[in-house]
C-alpha cells in the first residue's frame, strides 16, 4: 500500500469517527431541566427513548457499586452470565441446595438489578417454593421473610416500579396471613424485631404492613404515571382496603374485640368507601366509580320517566305491539303464563328471557315520539342509555370484587350486636378447647342469639355465600358441643334459616 | 598440515525436500550430497543464500531429518543424541535465552553435559574470559549487543571442549576486529586438533581459514577441494607492490613484455575465490542441473 493511500485511509477513518461521534452526541444528548435562560429540553433521541422505557440508570433506583462493577466486568456478556447463573440456580433448587440457590440468585440480581421479573420470580421461589420444603415452621417463616426481604431489596434498586411493591404487599399479606401456618407466621412476624426495627407493636401486623406496600404501589402509579404491569386497577386498588378487612378479621381471630375491632372495621369501611370513589376503567370503555351504581340507576330511571312524560302511554303501547308479534316456544309461553310466585327455577329463567324480549328500550320509545318533543326525547333517551351503560359496567365490576358484600360486611361488623356475637362465639370456642362444655354451650347460645339480631337487621347478609359459610362453621361447632353432651340441635333453632339455605351446599 | 584419514562427518547421498502440510513438494533444498570431513581440518561450506548450507548443517545436527540418504557424525546417525557430547554448535544467530545472563547461560548448557561441577565452573570462567565478556558476565543477554551475543554463543558452543565444531555463518554481525578475532580463534581451534565445519556466504572468511571447501548452489554440490588447489591458476602471476611511481610501472611493463608475457591488469586484484564462485554460478545458470566437480585432491 502506497503512503498516499495510507494517508487517505487515515483521513477517512478520522472523518468516520467524527461523524459517528457527532451523531452519537446529538442522539444521546441528555435531557435538561429548564432554567430562566433556557427552555426545557427533552434531550436527544436516545435520552428520550431511555426516558420512555424507564431505563436511565439514575431513574431506576439505588446504584450499587458492586453491581456496576460486575456489569462492567462481564464486558457486555452479562445476559449470558445471568443465563448461566439462572441455569445454576435452577439446578441448586432441584438439588435442594438452598444456600447455593440464594448465592446464585444474589449474583443474578447483582448482574441485572433492573430486571423486575427476576426479583418477582425468585422472591416467590424463596417465600413460596423453598419455604414449604422445610419441615419446621420456624424455618419456613425464615424463608418467607427471606423472600419478602428480597422483594424489598428489589424495590430499593427499582424506585419507580409499582409491581415490586405490589408483590411485596401480596407476599406479606397472602403468604403470611392466608397460609395454613398463618397463626405461627403471624406471631413470628409480630416478634420479628429484625424485620420491623422500631415499628411499634400495634402496627406489626402483616396485613397492615402489606397495606402500606399496596399503598406505595398505588402512589407510584398516581404520582409517576407508571403502569402496573399485569394487574388491572380494579383489582390492585382494592388490595389495600381488603388488607384492612383481613386485618380486622385476623385480630378477631386472635381474640381482640371491642373498640379496637370496631375501629379496625370502621377504617376498613372508610377505605372501601374511598375505593368506591376512584375513577376506574369499566366494561365498554366507560369510566366508572363503584359507589355510583345507585345514583346512575336512579338518573337513568328519572330520565326515561321524563321521556315517557312527553307522550304518555307510548311505552305500554309499544309493549302490547311487541306481545302480539312475539313468537314464543311452548315452554316459554307456559313459563311466562305461570304466575311469578309459582314458577320453578327453569321457568324463572324462561320467563326472564321473555321479559327481556318484551322490554321496550328508551331509544325505541324516543323513535316513536313525533312532533316538537321528538328532539328532546332523543336527547333524554341518549342520556338515559349512557347512564344505563355506566350502571351496567359498575354492576359487572362490583361483581368481580364482591363490592357490595364487603361494603355490607364492613358496616355490619361495626354493630354492637355483631361484635358481641363474634366475641361470644370466640369465648365459647375457648371454653370448648378448655373442655368446659357447659360454659361453651351457654356462650354459644348467647352468641347465636346475637347473630340472629344481626341477621334480622341485615337480612341481605344471608344471601351472601361467604357469610353463610362463615355462620355454618359456627353452627357446626355448636352442633359438636351439643353432640358431646348427647344433645341435638333444637327443633326451633335460632338460625334454622341459615341451615336451610346452606346445609346441603357443597 | 598433517592430513588424517579419520572421517568425522560423512554424508551419503543426503537429500532434503521440504514439503508443505499436505505433503506436496515445495523446495528441494539439498540434492544427493556426498561429503567427508576429516579430523583436524577446517571445512567450509560456501554458497549464496538458500543454497543448502544451513540445511546441511541442520541435517548433520539432527535438527532436520533427511528425505533420503544418510548423514553420519562420528560414525553415528545424526539423529543419535549421544554424538552431541563431543560436538559444539554455533547457530546462525546465537539462539539463546535472553532472560539469562552470561554465566547462567554457560552454566545451563554446561549442565547438559556430563562435566563435573568444578570443571564446569572453571570452563565457564575461562570461556567468558576468552570471548572478552568478563565485564558483562552478570548482565542479561537481552541487554547485549549483537556482537556480544555472538561471542557468548561461541562460548556456549565450546563449553564441552568439543572435538567437532559446527559454525553457521560465524562472522555475521561482527565488526572487522571481531571477524579477525573469530578467524584467529577458528585457526587456533584447528591447531588444538579440533575439526571445524563452517558455512558462510562471505568468501573472504572461507578463503582465509578453510583447508577445504565445498561450494553449494541451489542444493547441489558444485565444487569440492582444497582451497589452495581450487584457487591456483598456474599461468597467472600476481604482482602486488606499493610505492611505485609511474616510471617504475612502465619499467615493470617493459620487463613483462620482454619475457613475451602479457600484462592482464594492474591495480588492486579481485578476490579469486569470488571469481571462482561467480564462474560456478554463471555455469550453473547456463546449464542447470549439471554438476561441477572439483578435481579429486591428493
Amino acid at each position, binding site marked *: 500500500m502506497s503512503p498516499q493511500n495510507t494517508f487517505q485511509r487515515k483521513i477517512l477513518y478520522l472523518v468516520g469517527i467524527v461523524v459517528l461521534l457527532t451523531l452519537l452526541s446529538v442522539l444521546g444528548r441528555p435531557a435538561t431541566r429548564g432554567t430562566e435562560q433556557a427552555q426545557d429540553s427533552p434531550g436527544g433521541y436516545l435520552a428520550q427513548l431511555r426516558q420512555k422505557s424507564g431505563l436511565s440508570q439514575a431513574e431506576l433506583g439505588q446504584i450499587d*457499586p*458492586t453491581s456496576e*462493577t*460486575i456489569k462492567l466486568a462481564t464486558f457486555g456478556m452479562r445476559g449470558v452470565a445471568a443465563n448461566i447463573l439462572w441455569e445454576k440456580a435452577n439446578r441448586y433448587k*432441584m*438439588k*435442594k441446595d*438452598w*444456600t*447455593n440457590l*440464594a*448465592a446464585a440468585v*444474589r*449474583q443474578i440480581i*447483582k448482574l441485572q438489578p433492573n430486571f423486575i421479573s427476576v426479583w418477582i420470580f425468585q422472591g416467590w421461589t424463596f417465600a413460596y417454593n423453598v419455604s414449604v*420444603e*422445610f*419441615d*419446621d*415452621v*420456624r*424455618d419456613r417463616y425464615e424463608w418467607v421473610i427471606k423472600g419478602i426481604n428480597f422483594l424489598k431489596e428489589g424495590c430499593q434498586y427499582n424506585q419507580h416500579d409499582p409491581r415490586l411493591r405490589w408483590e411485596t404487599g401480596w407476599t406479606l399479606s397472602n403468604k403470611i396471613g392466608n397460609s*395454613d*401456618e398463618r*397463626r*405461627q407466621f403471624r*406471631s413470628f412476624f409480630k416478634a420479628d424485631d*429484625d424485620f420491623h426495627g422500631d415499628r411499634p407493636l400495634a402496627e406489626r401486623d402483616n396485613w397492615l404492613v402489606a397495606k402500606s406496600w399496596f399503598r406505595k404501589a398505588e402512589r407510584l402509579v398516581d404520582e409517576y404515571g407508571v403502569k402496573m404491569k399485569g394487574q388491572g386497577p380494579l383489582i390492585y386498588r382494592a388490595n389495600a382496603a381488603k388488607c384492612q378487612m383481613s386485618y380486622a378479621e385476623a385480630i378477631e381471630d386472635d381474640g381482640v374485640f371491642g373498640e379496637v375491632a370496631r375501629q379496625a372495621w370502621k377504617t376498613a369501611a372508610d377505605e372501601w368507601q374511598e375505593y368506591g370513589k376512584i375513577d376506574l376503567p369499566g366494561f365498554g370503555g366507560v369510566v366508572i366509580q363503584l359507589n355510583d351504581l345507585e345514583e346512575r340507576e336512579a338518573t337513568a330511571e328519572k330520565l326515561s320517566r321524563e321521556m315517557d312524560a312527553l307522550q304518555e302511554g307510548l311505552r305500554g303501547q309499544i309493549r302490547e305491539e311487541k306481545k302480539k308479534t312475539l313468537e314464543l316456544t311452548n315452554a316459554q309461553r307456559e313459563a311466562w303464563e305461570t304466575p311469578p310466585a309459582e314458577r320453578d327455577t327453569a321457568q324463572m329463567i324462561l320467563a326472564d328471557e321473555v321479559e327481556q324480549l318484551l322490554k321496550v328500550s328508551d331509544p325505541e320509545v324516543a323513535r316513536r315520539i313525533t312532533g316538537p318533543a321528538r328532539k328532546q326525547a332523543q336527547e333524554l333517551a341518549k342520556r338515559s342509555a349512557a347512564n344505563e351503560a355506566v350502571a351496567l359496567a359498575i354492576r359487572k365490576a362490583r361483581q368481580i370484587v364482591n363490592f357490595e358484600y364487603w361494603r355490607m360486611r364492613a358496616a355490619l361488623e361495626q354493630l354492637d350486636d355483631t361484635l358481641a356475637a363474634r366475641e361470644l362465639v370466640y369465648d365459647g370456642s375457648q371454653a370448648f378447647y378448655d373442655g368446659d362444655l357447659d360454659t361453651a354451650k351457654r356462650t354459644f347460645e348467647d352468641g347465636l342469639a346475637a347473630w340472629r339480631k344481626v341477621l334480622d337487621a341485615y337480612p341481605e347478609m344471608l344471601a351472601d355465600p361467604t357469610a353463610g359459610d362463615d355462620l355454618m362453621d359456627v353452627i357446626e361447632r355448636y352442633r359438636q358441643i351439643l353432640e358431646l353432651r348427647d344433645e341435638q340441635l333444637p327443633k326451633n333453632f335460632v338460625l334454622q334459616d341459615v341451615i336451610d339455605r346452606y346445609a346441603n351446599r357443597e | 598440515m598433517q592430513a588424517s584419514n579419520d572421517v568425522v562427518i560423512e554424508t551419503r547421498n543426503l537429500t532434503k525436500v521440504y514439503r508443505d502440510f499436505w505433503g506436496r513438494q515445495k523446495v528441494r533444498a539439498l540434492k544427493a550430497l556426498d561429503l567427508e570431513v576429516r579430523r583436524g581440518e577446517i571445512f567450509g561450506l560456501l554458497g549464496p543464500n538458500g543454497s543448502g548450507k544451513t540445511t546441511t548443517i*541442520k541435517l548433520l*545436527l*539432527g*535438527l*532436520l*531429518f533427511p528425505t533420503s540418504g544418510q548423514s553420519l557424525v562420528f560414525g553415528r546417525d545424526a539423529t543419535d*543424541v*549421544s554424538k*552431541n*557430547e563431543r*560436538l559444539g*554448535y554455533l*547457530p546462525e*544467530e*546465537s*539462539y*539463546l*535465552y535472553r*532472560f*539469562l545472563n552470561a554465566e*547462567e547461560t554457560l552454566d*545451563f*548448557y554446561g*549442565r*547438559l*553435559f*556430563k562435566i563435573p561441577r568444578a570443571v564446569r565452573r572453571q570452563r565457564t570462567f575461562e570461556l567468558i574470559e576468552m570471548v572478552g565478556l568478563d565485564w558483562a558476565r552478570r548482565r542479561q543477554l537481552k541487554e547485549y549487543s549483537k556482537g556480544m551475543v555472538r561471542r557468548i*554463543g561461541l562460548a*556456549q558452543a565450546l563449553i*564441552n571442549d568439543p572435538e567437532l565444531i559446527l559454525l553457521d555463518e560465524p562472522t555475521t554481525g561482527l565488526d572487522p576486529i571481531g571477524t579477525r578475532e573469530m578467524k584467529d580463534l577458528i585457526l587456533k581451534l584447528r591447531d588444538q586438533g579440533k575439526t571445524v565445519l563452517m558455512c558462510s556466504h562471505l568468501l573472504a572468511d572461507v578463503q582465509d581459514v578453510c583447508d577445504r571447501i565445498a561450494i553449494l548452489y541451489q542444493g547441489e554440490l558444485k565444487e569440492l577441494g582444497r582451497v589452495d588447489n581450487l584457487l591456483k591458476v598456474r599461468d597467472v602471476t600476481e604482482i602486488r607492490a606499493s610505492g611505485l611511481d609511474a616510471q617504475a610501472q612502465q619499467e615493470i611493463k617493459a620487463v613483462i613484455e620482454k619475457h613475451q608475457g602479457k600484462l592482464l591488469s594492474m591495480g588492486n586484484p579481485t578476490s579469486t575465490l569470488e571469481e571462482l564462485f561467480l564462474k560456478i554460478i554463471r555455469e550453473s545458470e547456463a546449464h542447470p542441473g549439471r554438476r561441477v566437480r572439483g578435481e579429486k585432491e591428493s
Partner: protein
Amino acid sequence: MVIEYAIVPFLEWLSTSFVYWLMILGGVVAAALIGSWLVVTLRHGPVVAFRCVGRVLSDTVVDLALIAPRRVLAMAWLAVKESIRRRVVVVFAVFLVLLLFAGWFLDPASSEPARLYLSFVLTATSYLVLLLALFLSALSLPADIKNKTLHTVVTKPVRPSEIVLGRILGFTAVGTVLLGIMALMSYVFVVRGLSHTHQVADADLRAVEQIDDGEPAIRQGHSSRVHKHRHEVTVDASGGVRVELEHGHWHDVSAGQSAGETVYQFGPPRGRLVARVPVYARQLRFKDPTGEDAEEGVNVGDEWGYRSFIRGGSLAAAIWTFEDITTDRFPKSSFPDGLPLEMTLEVFRTYKGQTDDPKTIPGILGSLSVGDPKTGKPIEVRLFTAKDFATDVQYIPRQVETPDGRKLDLFKDLAPDGRLEVWIRCIQPMQYFGMARADVYFRARNAQFWVNLAKGYFGIWLQMVLVIGIGAMYSTFLSGPIALLATMGTLLGGFFSRFMGDLGAGAVMGGGPIESLYRLVTQKNLIQDLEPGLKTTVIEMIDHVLEYGLWVTSSLLPEFDRFSFSEHVAKGFDVSGNLAAQCALRSLAFLIPVFVAGYLFLKTREVAR
C-alpha cells in the same frame, strides 16, 4: 449437605481401575503403532515402515530408561527462570484483587457462609492456577521452537524425554509455590471473613424462674445481632456462660468484670471450619411397606432422584450396613456418649399435620434401630424427631436393651465382625423419610481443618499438574496458540467428560448432535419423537457415528471435576486418604501416557522446521 457420589475402597478401586487403565493404554498404543506404520508405509513401503517403527520403539525405551536427573533438573531450572521472566507474579495481583472484591458478593450473614467462602476461594484459586498452568505449559515450547532457542538446546546431549519432563517439573514447581502462597492467603481470607463477635450485657439477660426457691436463677438473653443472627446466651448461677448454636457456629465467651459490671467477651466463631471424618456405610438397602426387601424406596415426585423415600407407619425401612465398627475405632474414652451417628434425612409430608397451635410444632417421628445379626431383626435404640435440611446427631449407646430385657453389647453382640446394621423407620403414617447412602454416617473424629484445606489445594495441585502435562504434550507438536486451544479444549472436555460420556452412550434427552440440531432448527421439543422416515434414519446413523466418537473421547479425557476436593472441604468433610490417593494415582495414570506421548511427538518432529 452431603457428598453425592460414593468413594470405593482403595484396593477395590485399584484392581478394577488398573485393569481398565491397562486396557485403554493398550488400545491407544496399538492404535498409535498401527497408525504410524500405515503412514510410513504409504511413503516408504511396509518393510521400511516396520523397521522405522521398530527403531522408534527401541529408541523410546532407551530414551526413557536413560533419563538423567542432572539434565532434567537443568531443564526444570530453565522453565522456572522462564516463568519468572514471564511475570507469573501477576497472578498474585489478580488473586488479591479477587479476594478484595469477593467480600462484595460473599454474604457472611448467610446460613452457611463457610461453604460460600470456601467454595469461592477454592474455585478462584483453581481457575487462576489452571489458567496459569495452561499458559505456561502450552506456550513455552512453541516459543522456544519459534525463537530457535531450542536448536541450541537439542544440539546438546539432551533427550527429548528430558526436555518434556524438565518442563513439566519446572512449571509444576512454579505452580506449587504459587498455589502454596495462594492457599495461605485464602486461609487468612476465610478466617477473617467469617470472624465476628457479638455483644451481650447484663441488661440483656433476664432471670428465668426456677421451680425450687432455693436455686439461684439462671439468666437468659440474646446477644447483639451481627451478620444477621444472634445467639441465645445462658448464664448459670456459677457464672458459666453457654452460647447456643446459631448459623452453624457458636462462640467461646469469657465473663469478666469492668467498672463493676459483668462484661461478656465473645471469641471468634467456632464450629464453622470443620473437617468431619465420616464412616460411610458400605451399602444401603430398603424394606418395602410390607417388610420385603426392596431395591429402593419410593419416589415422591422429586426431579432429583438422589434420595429414596420410605413410608411411615409401615414396615418400610432403610438399612445401612457399616463395616469396621470396632472398639479401636470408637474407644470409650473419646466417645463417652456412644457412637455419634449423623443424619441428614429429608422429610416429605403428605399432610401437614397439626399446625394450629404455635406453641407445639410437631416434627415427624422416626425410630433408630440397630440390627441384631442373630435374628436379622432390628432392636430399637431410640425415637427421634427428624430435622429437615439439617444434620442431626444421634448417639448409639454401647449397650442396647432388647424388648425382652436382655442387654447386648454393641461391639461384641451386634457387630461381632465389625459389621453393624443401622435401621431407620418413619413412625408417623402417611409421612415419608427420604435418604441416600451418604446421608447417614458415623462421625469418627474431627480432622484438622487446615489440613483438610491443604488437601483441597492438593486436589487443585493435581489438576494443575495434569494441565501442565497436557499442555506440554500438545506444545511438542502444535504451535503456541493452537496448543493453548487444544489444552483448553481438553480441560473443558474433561470438566464435561461425564456429560460427553452420557451423550456418547445416548443417555441424554434429545438425541445426538445432529438430532439436537434438527430439533433446535425445527423447534421440536425433547419429548416429541421424530417422525420415522429416511431423514430420521440418516440423522440417527450420523449420530451413532458421532456418539461413538464422543464416547471414545470421553473415556480418554480425565474427569477433571473428580480431582476437585472443593466440595468436601466446603461442606466440612474430611478428604480421606483413600480419596486423595485415588485421585493422585488417577492423575499419574494420565500423566505417564501424556508424558510419553509428548516425548514421542518431540522426538519424531523436526525441530528446525
